[in-house]
């Protein structure tokens, strides 16, 4: 079964608002200092090394983690809403396997119209 990733934020926001983005990943975060009770085998380290957040393709936040982060890691941070667009979160493993979660953020101005990242004339 694929490992679960959760992403949550306020879907419709105004321009200039700070949006809190909450993420939760399902991961054991094996520290590399634990051993099996019976056989004594040391479990090798396997943690999420980095979390990268992208907003419309641009990196807006980066976290580098070590073995001191707890299992099933939770992370919350803020971004400023400028225009509607894609929010992508990328989790990167020790084995360099990556997993993604993405969502759409809708930004409206004072008149209630959506602010699109691409300008176009009709």
């Amino acid at each position: 079964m694929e490992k679960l990733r959760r992403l949550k934020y306020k879907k419709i926001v105004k321009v200039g608002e700070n949006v809190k983005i909450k993420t939760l990943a399902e991961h054991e975060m094996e520290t590399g200092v634990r051993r099996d009770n019976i056989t004594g085998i040391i479990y090798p380290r396997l943690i999420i090394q980095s979390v990268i957040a992208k907003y419309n393709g641009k990196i807006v936040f980066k976290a580098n983690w070590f073995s001191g982060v707890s299992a099933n890691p939770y992370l919350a941070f803020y971004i400023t809403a400028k225009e509607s667009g894609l929010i992508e979160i990328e989790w990167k493993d020790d084995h360099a396997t990556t997993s993604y979660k993405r969502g759409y953020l809708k930004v409206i101005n004072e008149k209630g119209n959506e602010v699109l990242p691409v300008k176009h004339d009709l």
Partner: protein
Amino acid sequence: MIYNTNLLNFFFVCIISLIFLKKYCLAEDLISGYHFSEPSTQKIQDDDFLNPGFIWVENGEFLWNKKEQTSQLSCKSCHGASSEMTGVALKYPKITKKGDLINLEQQINICRNENMGAGTYEPESKNLLALSVLLYYQSRGLKQDIKINEKNKEYFNLGKKLYFKKIGQMGLSCNQCHDERVGQNLRAEKVSQGHINGFPSYLLRWSKIASVHKRIQFCNEQARAIPFKIFSKEYNALQLYMTWRGRGLKIETPAVRK
């Protein structure tokens, strides 16, 4: 009409004092394990996003809708959506037609084996716990009430006997801590009343969901006794007694405990 005010006053005082006696002197109130944990732990349980137990709920939802290769059946095709299973988990542990006592996890395995033609899950495996958590989560907020009748009377008595039986090198019985020493410190932790209304719950010490049986096994190891096997008759009986003991408490699954 003429009221005897003196008599009325006397009755009033009597009733008030009875209520106080019940509440503070007899201390029969049931307290959930939630109130024995630190505020930092309570905060994790309160928020559905912070709570890591919801990973299991979502995985369970995925398994509920997944069709098995062997029979092209999923749990959903017989039982409907998982939200329709409200209150089902309250009936467990339950007596089967054969007369055995089984809990919800065993029932899931039986259902998979006989009706779906798929293999059973290992005890304490992630998939089994995910389904179990999902079903308990559907009756979150409902009160535990299990009926003791002719059928399960025998198991209930066995469970009660086990609860008061002294075991292990330490010679401890369940009631010595969870009835007599409630609220006191046992090394670094506070002794709770030992209710199982939050189980299967997310235990911080193992960073994963643990079932009731696994938790009782751990408790037995702490008392230096040889624990029974998971899904054994004794643990099912004990679970039945503990569910009866905490009747009236609300289900909190997935709870976060130490």
